[in-house]
Structure formats: C-alpha cells, structure tokens
C-alpha cells in the first residue's frame, strides 16, 4: 500500500484536508499486527446522504467519493454491510423510531 498511502497523503496534503484517498478503512494501521490482505483497495459505502452517496469516509478536497488505487486493485461498493450488521442508515432509523412517537 506504499504508493497508495503516499499518493493519498500527497492529495490530502495538497488539498489541505485530513484523511486518505479511499483505502478500505478496515485495513490495519501500519506498525500493527501482520496485515491480512485487504479484499479491496477502496470501498464505497452507498448512502442516502446528500453529497455522500458513494462514501469512502475519507474527505479529499471536499469530496468523500474519490479513491486512488494501483493498477490491478479492487474497488467495492457496499449497499449492505450485512456481515457487520445493519448499515448506519438503518441504525439511525431504528434509534429515531425508538425515540419518536408514531406518526399520526
């Protein structure tokens, strides 16, 4: 991931914002345990949120919808994170439902 991290950092630095370029956020931090090969170099979470419909979670020059990868790498688009439970949208809805009287 050296190149991706380098480019991501360069892009983020140039844009004056924090974050990387769309690497899978589940990837382990450098210096941690031996990394498990990531299934995708970039992951977009599909959401209903204005402007962040394909969301890497990593802002780059204002957008969270841009990823930088190397040739031969994989990109994933997650409409469900079923392996990790409901999406954050559903979670918000559930919390909202629990705290809100039923509509008339």
């Amino acid at each position: 991931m050296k190149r991706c991290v380098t480019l991501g950092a360069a892009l983020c630095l140039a844009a004056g914002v924090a974050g990387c370029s769309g690497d899978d956020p589940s990837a382990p931090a450098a210096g941690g345990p031996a990394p498990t090969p990531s299934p995708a170099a970039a992951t977009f979470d599909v959401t209903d949120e204005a402007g962040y419909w394909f969301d890497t979670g990593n802002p780059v020059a204002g957008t969270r919808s841009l990823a930088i990868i190397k040739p031969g790498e994989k990109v994933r688009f997650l409409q469900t994170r079923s392996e990790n439970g409901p999406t954050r949208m559903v979670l918000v809805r559930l919390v909202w439902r629990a705290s809100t009287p039923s509509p008339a």
Partner: protein
Amino acid sequence: MESLHTVTSLIWPSDATPAERIDQAIANKADHEVTLNAKGLYVFVCKVHPYMLAGVIVDDEKTTTTKPGSSEPIAAFDIGERLHLLGVTHTKGVTEAADAGSAFPSNSDLGLRLLRAFFVVTSPSGWKDYTKLNTVYHPVYPDVPVVVTGGAVVPSLKAALEKAFDGDKIPASQTKPATAGVGEVWVDTQYEISAKKGDAYPSSITVVDTETWKVKRKIALPDQKMNNGHNMWSSHDQNHIYQTEWHGKSLYVLNRADGKFLQEIEVGEDPAHVMTRVDTQQVHSGLNGEDSVVELDRDSATGLLTKKRNISMQDPAKPGNLTQPHAHWMGHDGKTMATPNANTNDSSFFDFPTDKVVKKESTGFLPIAAAMDPRSTKTYVSNYLGHSISVLCGGTAATPPIPEWVSGGPGTKIKDIPLLDTSANGNYDVINGPKAGAAIGGLPIQTPVSPDGKFVVTGNTLTGTITIIRTSDDTLVKSLTCDPGCHGVDFGAKKGGGYYAYVTSKFANRLLVYDIGNGDDAKLVGWVVLADDAAPNDDSITGNKGMGGQGLLPVPNVYNGWVQKLPKSFCDQLSPAQRNPVGPPVDTCPES
C-alpha cells in the same frame, strides 16, 4: 441506505476492458466490486439517482512530475489518454466491447467539464451558496498535478478548472421579478438537513410566495422520514399536495394551506414523480425502482389516497427488463400517459381508454423526464445520458390522425433534438467547448412544455443551462445560464398574463425565475434564495440550507386540462387567456 440503486460505469479509460466495467440489469441492494487495471479516471453512477457519483483514479506509481523550479519528483495523477463517456462515445451496453477510436481526449473541454461536475456534485462544501453575498464562488478542487492526453502534465487541476469555468461573483442582493407571479411555488429542497431527521434523511419543502418573492414556509416533516422528497403535484382543488420520496417507498399528502402532514402511504420502491389524472382526480406516481406506475384513488371527502393498482410499463407483446420509470406525464384530458423508462432507454405510451401500453419506443440513453404539449399531441422526453430530447407522437388510440403523427401513431418517435451535438455541424466541440453563439445543454432533466404550447424549457445539469425548444418546428433556439446542477423546471402564471418558467438547481440554493417571452428574448428576471432561517418551519434546518432544488410545483396549476378545474378563487387570479391557454379566452370564472 433505504432505496434501490445501481452501480454503473459512466466514464472509463479507452483501454479498459469490458471486465473493468460494471452494471446491473435492475436496481438492487446488492454489493458490487470490480478490479481495475488500466490507469486513468473511472466514474461510476447510479442509474436510478444519477447524481450519485463515485470516482476512482487508477494511478501508476511511476507517474511523477516536478514542482516549478525544482527537480524533486512529486506525484502526478493519471487521468488517462482518452476516456469513454457512456451515452456519448459508448452507446452500447456498458460491458460490451468499446471502440477505442471513439473515445475523447482527456485534455479537452469535455474532460474538464466532467471533472468539474464530479467535484461539484460530490462536495457539499463546494455547492453554490447565494447567502454568501458579494463573494466569488469557488467550488472545491484538489490542487494536484494530473497527467492527461499525450503525457501532458497539468500542474494544478484546481487552477485549470478555475480558469476554465469559475470566477463569477454571488450577487450582493436579490433581484426580484418586476411583475408578481400568481400564488406559490413549492420547491423540493431535497438536500436540506433538518434537526430531527438528521443527515440520514435529507429533504424539506420550501414554499415561496410569488407576490413578495420571499420564502413563506419550510416543511421538513420531522415525524416522518420523507427520505429525499423529490417531486410534487396538487389536487384539483389545490387543497392538497402530493409529495414523493425518491429514496424511500412512500407518498405523502400535505395540507397546502398550512403545510401540515395528512397521510403517508407506502406505494413501492423509489417513487419519483407524481401527477393527477384530469378526468378522475386519481394520482399516479412512477416507481423508479420497479416496473410500473402506481395508481391511487382519492377520497373526495378527505382528500386521502388508497392504492388501487400497479400499471406495468412493459410492451405487452414483448415484455422485457424492468422499465423503472422516472418522471411520467399525463395527458391534458386524462386519456394518456407517457413514461421515460430509465432502465430500458425507451418511453412507454399508455392509453387509458384501452388500458394498455400502445407503444414502447426507443429514445436515448437514460430517459429521465417526459412532458406533453397542451393538447397531448406530442411528448417530449429528456435523455439524461444521451444529452438530447426525443419528440414522440401523442394522441389516443381512438384519436383521428393528427398532423403531428408520423407512421406508427401514438408513442412513435418523430425526431431527436441533440443538446450537446459533437458532430461537425453541431453546437459543441469536444476539445474547445461550445461553439460561439450556440445554444447548449447536457445531462437534461425536467422538460415541460409551456401551458400555451409554444416552448419546451429544459434544465441541464452538466452545462448549468436551461435550453429552449420552439415547438412549432421543434428546434433548439436558445440557452441561458442556470446554476450548478440545473434540474427542475415548471411553469406558473405571471400576474396579468403570460407565464414564468421556475427553475431549481441541485447544487445551489436559488429558485430562478425566467420570462420566456417569444423565445429569442427569453431572460432571467429574478430569483429567490431558498435558504431562510427566519421562515416559519416545522423543524430547524441545520445543513445544506436551501440546497438540492429538484421537483417544484407552482400553485395554482395552470396547465391545460388542470387549469379549467381550478376553484373560482384561483381562477379569478388568472387572466382570460391563462384560464384556457389553447382555446378561447374565458372572461368570467365559473362558480366552484
């Protein structure tokens, strides 16, 4: 994430193989992945909600440049030599083999225009905010070097985009139209965030008073979710507003006078647009994630709705893939309906007397909105990724032949009107941009016909323009500057006579008011900023204030067929010609 989507390759490098592109046959909730090898820019889009964009740059680590005056290598990002754009340079199925020779150079007006669109669309901090009075508008771009056609290095993408497109100043004050409108304009400010619903369920309705040209009310429906409310229509008596939920499943019924919630009814996946049927007062909504238009009956006493049936938009003789209709249009007499089928690149023409689809005609790539002329003799369909307007025959199966018909009858295509014509005699040069003096559009969306039938006005997202088509010969005659993400268009009455074209934009917070005049003298006559913290509301607006303008609804409804159904109190506000836009003037309004 509540609604159905697709992940579809929109832009890719010319040397990318079919395996490096993705698409799905229908809208879905599945996960998707693709491995990308060819270096360059890839953009993915949702065909249901085509403002949803994802960008990926496949970058060769050996691609570097140097800072001016330095020999130190720095990263430069690969945009690609030449790119394909679905619907323009690649007009086959997404994953079919592409002709590399038809791809366009990345170092071009089209390349820059598409890059700018990507950064504007996906960067809420870069949306055009008209409350920032007297400041220069600057979208947010990355200040990085990129490598384009022929290995040329653009030292700063930010500088290149700003030089090509930006620098205009937000006006210091509002310009109000000199002549008042009649009634209100309801605007779906689809991207506004409100306190109780939060980021997960954007959208509110902003009601504008056309007498004062001020925001009159904000309606967020905090006790419902109204997830991305997209489009509206009114009941014949103008007492009730029907509101769709594009990223959800519901229709909402509101009381027009005070904006209060009356009903939520679940109708199906991704209801996009809604209209009433003139002769029955039934309500129809295109299900953008399904195959049908849902039909609802209206209780005349309460105004509430009951789901009656789903009307399939398939050709009964040749059923195929799901049609996924977006913005349908109903005929002036309630006898016909036309749908733009976003998933099958065609338009279905439904005949109510025989209760069937009588024609399912190819149009262009990703048809998104339809409209009929006031006598329902022609239908206009905007092709979002085809950058064109298709003109089709109207009429009913039982109608005697009419002059507009071509062989084939109702629903048959008459012609296509290109808005972004890259041919030698066209209005657009891929390398250098719009030709001098040429009217131009791109990524067209709403496309209504004026109530008097003289003009079609279309909102164009890519070019940030409205285009005006003269219906007498179906010719593109003019374009005028709009705002980023130009989207919604609808006509309302101008006090004393004539009409205003009201226009909304997704990535700006103004309602624009155009006087179309005789076409050649069409002009912007004023605007209303849709962000207004002082306006009465049912919940506080906390983000994207006034942004996301999409569907809009002038009240009263002045289209032929509907205008004759208005209560006397509304009719009295109209001129004799407005009361009957394509027939003899009506001097005295009938009693309601």
